[in-house]
């Protein structure tokens, strides 16, 4: 099978209406009507800003739009998983059904299907689980066997796991599933059967541990990175992370999904919130 190719974005930002809101522990899942845009591919993201009163929060921010992975796409509506970690996410988390936001995208390089007959292991944590949900949908629709391993900081975040199906859980505080790191689940899973492709998204520390583990065990891994972004479409050169060859790559256009082999290591600030 193959996963959908990157969708190209409409040329401007557009107003989109929130049609549903759901709370999963501390997370908020919003569904945004976006019928006129092409369907995003798993791993792509959008730049979001509230249509009204974007600004005027802490330190007179936010100003720039914020990047969010598309967590799911059904019948012309995209879902996004939000965690309030600052003035931008705080404002977005205030929005309710019927309110509107500015949306640009979908942007970025998506995940690609596992080569050959490898099964897909989806490993993620925190808000990093978002792109894994739409990935799971697409892989399973294509008949690929998936294993889902999710880690959360605490019990208030564990409900996020409902976004995916059949997840094995780990939690830092032992409130659900394995008491420890999701990498420990992954190590066990790879030991059981190494014929796998790993898809990971999560905090920098988790991604780095996954990258190192996959390097050591010679398992192909695709990482969905994060990074502070101003534009999302390659214009500002602000979102770079250092690559193995000594250069930088723009997470928004050369990522967010990259082959783990491109990186020497996953730097702090290239990861999602835990």
């Amino acid at each position: 099978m193959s996963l959908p190719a990157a969708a190209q974005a409409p040329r401007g930002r557009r107003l989109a209406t929130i049609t549903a809101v759901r709370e999963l522990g501390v997370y908020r899942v919003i569904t945004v009507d976006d019928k006129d845009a092409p369907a995003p591919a798993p791993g792509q993201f959008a730049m979001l800003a509230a249509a009204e009163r974007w600004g005027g929060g802490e330190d007179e921010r936010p100003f720039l739009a914020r990047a969010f992975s598309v967590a799911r796409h059904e019948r012309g509506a995209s879902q996004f998983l939000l965690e309030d970690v600052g003035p931008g996410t705080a404002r977005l988390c205030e929005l309710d059904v019927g309110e509107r936001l500015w949306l640009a995208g979908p942007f970025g390089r998506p995940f690609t299907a596992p080569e050959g007959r490898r099964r897909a292991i989806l490993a993620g944590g925190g808000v990093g689980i978002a792109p894994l949900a739409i990935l799971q949908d697409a892989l399973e629709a294509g008949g690929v066997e998936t294993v889902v391993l999710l880690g959360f900081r605490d019990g208030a975040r564990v409900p996020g796991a409902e976004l995916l199906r059949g997840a094995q859980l780990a939690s830092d505080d032992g409130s659900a599933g394995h008491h420890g790191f999701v990498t420990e689940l992954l190590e066990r899973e790879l030991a059981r059967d190494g014929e796998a492709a790993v898809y990971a998204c999560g905090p920098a520390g988790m991604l780095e541990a996954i990258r190192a583990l996959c390097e050591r065990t010679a398992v192909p891994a695709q990482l969905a990175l994060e990074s502070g972004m101003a534009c999302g479409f390659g214009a500002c050169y602000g979102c770079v992370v250092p690559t193995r060859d000594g250069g930088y790559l723009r997470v928004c256009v050369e990522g967010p999904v990259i082959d783990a082999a491109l990186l020497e290591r996953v730097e702090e600030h290239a990861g999602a919130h835990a």
Partner: protein
Amino acid sequence: MSVEFCGLRLAHPIINGSGTFDAIAALQAFGEGLGEAFPFSAYVSKTITLRPRAGNPPPRLWETSAGMINSIGLPNKGLERYIAEDLPLIAGFRTDPAAGAEPLEVPVLTNVMGSTADELAELVEACDAQERVAAIELNVSCPNVATGLDIGADPAELERVLAAVRPRTPKPLIVKLTPNAADVPACALGAEAGGADAVSLVNTLRAAALAPEGPPRLWLGGGTGGLSGPAIRPVALAQVTAVAASVEIPVVGMGGVQSAVHARQLLDAGASLVAVGTENFRDPAVGTRIAAGLS
């Protein structure tokens, strides 16, 4: 609504600020159709240097109150690869019909930076040889690279550099001024005296941010950076007003423009063209939106 600028006919007065719209990346993100619906009437490239530059280590961005600081550090492929690889891809665009102006071809304005007059002359000469380069913008103002600052803030030095560069091309030379100077109109007059065909301003204001957590340290990988966006619009308006009142050559005004109203104000202040920078990041189609709003 078409305008004449240094001998170029442009569909409308809205162009992009250097380094705030990467047409090649945008073609990838928005599709090839962008080439037939380009948001700007001229396309200004990111700053090109003689040799390739990787740019500054991250973090490169910091959001501020109604603005942002960047410390990108002028990453670019270098002159040779820019000419060989990029120029062919960015030539021949046409303006977006939705701008409300008769679509026209989008000329390429190549922005270059060198740390000496010789380097600048070499860059200008190379651009002169490229048919696809319609005009050259000299970045003597980038606050992220020490050398850029010094040339640009000193009127006499600026005149000297221009005089050295001017003979290398008959193409329009636009000098991008630094706002981090005591007397920006004097700098503009220096550029004019040296033979510039136009000046553009403002570049970003030197600015810094501290890390939000941990022991105090400068947040940006490059140390300091440049402030842009609505926060600086009042500074841009003052400088554009003062410069336009001082020089005879045309002025490209920019700094914090988000709407047709803001663009109109810079035109009223004496600018011939208006460039949009940071707002592109918030709305990739803002160029067309503003041009349409002006018509």
